[in-house]
């Protein structure tokens, strides 16, 4: 009951049980600290059967589909976020027609462009992650001093190396150390990942063979601006917290091609694993359906308590209120919910801009890796829809002197054919019902006509679908994003959630620097497609709200993006309290017993998926709390 947990003076109160919250709780639990976790969403289920059932039944198999709260209500209409106790953005509320509709979209988006990423509010947080465990490259931490762009981090790669190792051990990473030595990334002598690398897919192999069959020329690769001749562009395995052998009582990947949104056999790590370990320490208490809404600051600028509201049903009202008192507070509520909580906490006017916000930087510099996705049809069968969603990519182009001028990009090679654009449903429906949404059911000159040439039955249908599906290719470019002060999370003054709390309001745009990164990515796509002999099926709809047009090599090109789910910034880390929110240990400059953790503290976003870096930072923070706040 709320009353009982409210009577205790906890050592540490943690808000949120995703990657950062779970990792820190576990370390503190092992250190025999009394910890309570407040989780806004549902708790850890006894098994993932319900999640799987929800996923299999879902008409929209989006990253959020296995998890709560429900997305669709009666007559399959999106549930109005105004009645949801702990709402969340979903991919289905990011369409051209509804991304700015507050009756369907949880985030109140003021534009000018859509913020395309989503997150969950449930125990385990972003369990729908891919499993990618890339480290940031050394220069990613010093963009200002190396390239004159943005800011430097208050830490360097060499400071974080040991924590990267600890994080990899906790998550269990499959990769090959030698293959991961590029862009100046180095490892401790004798270091090895926990498991051998996940082997390349047949699609990866075709990309590598095509791209590197002959040495590349300066004419072909000069646009990259690498400052040196590029004659080869390696396709490297992507380190992943996905078992290539049994690890910590979980089995090896069986290639379900479903890492996002959920691995049906839990071969992929997710934070519920660490969360269960944390609870098994006997020192960690977990409280689900408990939404923190007010951080109370007392004398000496120390946080004294966090107030929360409880609810019983997803669309129910508040049923209870409580307050947690602790010596140390950790906010691990993700990059949008953390600043939302800080901004809501005005302490009756004593912290008018919100808690931890003397710098006015809370909520600012929201970043993602805007994801430019392209599709093609291969001249030979490459057999997608097999293996993990992504096994390889191109990372060698992530760092170089070009960063003085334009954003970097990283290339993901997809193993899931055209699933991102709705397959296998779209193409199957096309050839069964004589439609042409895929563009595959008509010759090239009529590729964009809505009705297709063929409506097939029987063996003709089998032959046609086999021929098309087995040649589908897609890849994506994760573009580095400028940390722009005006890309910002604030509080909506008009729209509230089911508990009566103001919903997050987002303003978001792409800088010229980032757009120049898109241009380079498009040129890379042209090179790749030419080498692979791909027929280009990439199309950008007229009304796509993410669309922007650029003149590239004499051609007007439509570009667009989707969210990568790599939400970063809003509580920037730095040495200067006037320019940043937390220090290098993720401790608030303003309140010495308050830590803000997760990718919200990233000063810059680079191109690597943020999870491993935020995990490493979390473990460093946990050690710091144990060593400083509870020094014997």
């Amino acid at each position, binding site marked *: 009951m709320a009353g009982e947990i409210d009577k205790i003076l906890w050592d540490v109160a943690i808000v949120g049980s995703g990657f950062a919250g779970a990792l820190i709780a576990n370390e503190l639990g092992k250190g025999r600290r009394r910890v309570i976790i407040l989780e806004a969403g549902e708790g850890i289920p006894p098994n993932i059967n319900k999640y*799987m*059932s929800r*996923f*299999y*039944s879902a*008409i929209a*198999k989006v990253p959020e589909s296995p998890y709560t709260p429900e997305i669709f209500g009666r007559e*399959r209409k999106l549930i109005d976020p105004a009645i949801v106790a702990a709402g969340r953005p979903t991919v289905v509320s990011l369409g*051209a027609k509804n991304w700015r509709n507050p009756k369907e979209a949880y985030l109140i988006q003021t534009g000018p462009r859509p913020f395309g990423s989503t997150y969950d509010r449930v125990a385990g947080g972003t369990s729908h992650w891919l499993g990618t465990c890339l480290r940031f490259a050394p220069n990613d931490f010093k963009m200002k001093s190396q390239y004159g762009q943005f800011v430097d981090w208050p830490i360097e790669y060499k400071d974080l190396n040991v924590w990267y190792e600890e994080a990899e051990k906790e998550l269990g990473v499959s990769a090959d150390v030698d293959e991961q030595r590029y862009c100046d990334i180095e490892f401790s002598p004798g270091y090895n990942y926990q498991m051998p690398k996940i*082997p*390349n897919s*047949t699609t990866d*192999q075709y990309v590598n063979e095509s791209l590197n069959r002959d040495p590349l020329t300066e004419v072909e690769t000069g646009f990259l601006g690498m400052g040196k001749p590029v004659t080869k562009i390696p396709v490297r395995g992507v380190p992943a917290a996905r078992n*290539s052998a049994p690890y910590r009582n979980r089995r*090896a*990947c*069986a*290639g*379900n*091609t*479903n890492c996002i949104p*959920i691995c*049906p056999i839990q071969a992929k790590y997710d934070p519920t694993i660490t969360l269960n370990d944390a609870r098994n320490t006997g020192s960690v208490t977990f409280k689900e359906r408990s939404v923190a809404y007010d951080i109370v600051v007392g004398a000496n600028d120390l946080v004294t308590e966090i107030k929360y509201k409880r609810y019983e049903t997803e669309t129910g009202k508040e049923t209870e209120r409580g307050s947690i008192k602790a010596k140390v507070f950790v906010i691990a509520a993700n990059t949008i919910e953390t600043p939302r909580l800080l901004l809501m906490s005005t302490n009756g006017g004593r912290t008018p801009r919100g808690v931890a916000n003397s710098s006015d930087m809370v909520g600012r510099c929201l970043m993602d890796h805007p994801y430019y996705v392209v599709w093609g049809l291969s001249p030979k*069968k490459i*057999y*997608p*829809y*097999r*293996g*993990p969603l992504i*096994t390889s990519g191109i990372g060698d182009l992530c760092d170089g002197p070009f960063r003085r001028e334009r954003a970097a990009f990283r290339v993901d090679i997809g*193993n*899931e*054919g055209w*699933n991102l654009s709705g397959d*296998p*449903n779209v193409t*199957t*429906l096309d050839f*069964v*019902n*004589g*439609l042409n*949404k895929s563009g595959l059911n008509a010759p090239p000159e009529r590729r964009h006509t*809505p*009705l297709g040439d063929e*409506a097939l*039955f*029987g*063996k*003709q*249908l*089998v*032959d046609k*679908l*086999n021929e098309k*599906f*087995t040649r589908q290719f897609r890849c994506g470019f994760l573009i580095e994003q400028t940390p722009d002060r005006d890309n910002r999370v604030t509080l909506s003054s008009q729209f509230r959630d089911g508990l009566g709390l103001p919903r997050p309001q987002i303003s978001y745009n792409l800088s010229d620097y980032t757009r120049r990164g898109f241009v380079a990515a498009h040129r890379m796509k042209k090179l790749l497609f030419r080498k692979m002999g791909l027929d280009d099926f990439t199309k950008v*709809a007229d*009304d796509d709200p993410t669309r922007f047009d650029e003149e590239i090599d004499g051609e007007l090109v439509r570009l667009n993006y989707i969210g990568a789910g790599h939400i970063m910034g809003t509580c920037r880390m730095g040495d200067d309290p006037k320019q940043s929110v937390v220090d290098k240990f993720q401790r608030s400059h303003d309140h010495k017993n308050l830590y803000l953790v997760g990718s919200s503290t990233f000063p810059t976003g680079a191109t690597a998926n943020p999870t491993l870096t935020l995990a490493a930072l979390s473990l460093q923070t946990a050690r710091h709390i144990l060593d400083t706040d509870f020094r014997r």
Partner: protein
Amino acid sequence: MGGSLPNKHPIAPNAIEDEPAGVVTRRTVLTGAAAVTAAASVGTALDTPAGAQSVDVNSQEHMVLFVLLSSALTGIPPEKLAPGGFKLQSPNPPAPTPPIDLSKSIPGFDPVDVKREYLTRANEKCPAALEYLLQLVRKNLNASNRDEAIIAALQFDDDDKTKRPADVDAQYLARSIVLMWYLGAWYEPAELKALRKDLPTDPTRVPKFEVVSPKAYTQAWALRVAQAHPMGFSEMQFGYWTRPPNPRTDFI
């Protein structure tokens, strides 16, 4: 079990070419009491009010007919659609030499049994068109080109003036049945028809459908046809993705 159908509605005159009009009933056609032709017939029609469910989902015979129909439409062998002993029986063993004895044929003992879900769904939603389709199978049951004959009866253009509404209804239900098998999803025949009409003027129109059941999703054939597996339901082992898949015949 099979054949206990109500004898209420006379079949259309041209339904079975060698039967006098008004004599053949739905009962006789579906139970096989009437003589059937081995020849393919395009344009088989049935004037049946929608809403009456005459197909018995518990009938072995009707299930056998449904599996044969599904096999013809999907291009996937009946033994794969109905694993666990699907077998056509002939009065004169060894089977399956024609003529086939439906009363002794077995739809298989598949514990997963999505075929029952699909037959039930089609029967609940479009009983008349389903009956039309099962009649079509029975009519061509012993034809050497059974699958081709079934397909030929259902493959025609939207603007074919020789087709009656019942023919068109059957065509779209046939497509819905294929989509159930391929995607584990139910697309209403009326929705399929509407999509063809609407998309030229509204290319952003999103198809409406529902997943028949979690089980149906895991049994879907679209990606097995691609020599893969439904996403989130792999029965393969670590590393299989590093080499080309087994031949297509191993999947379907």
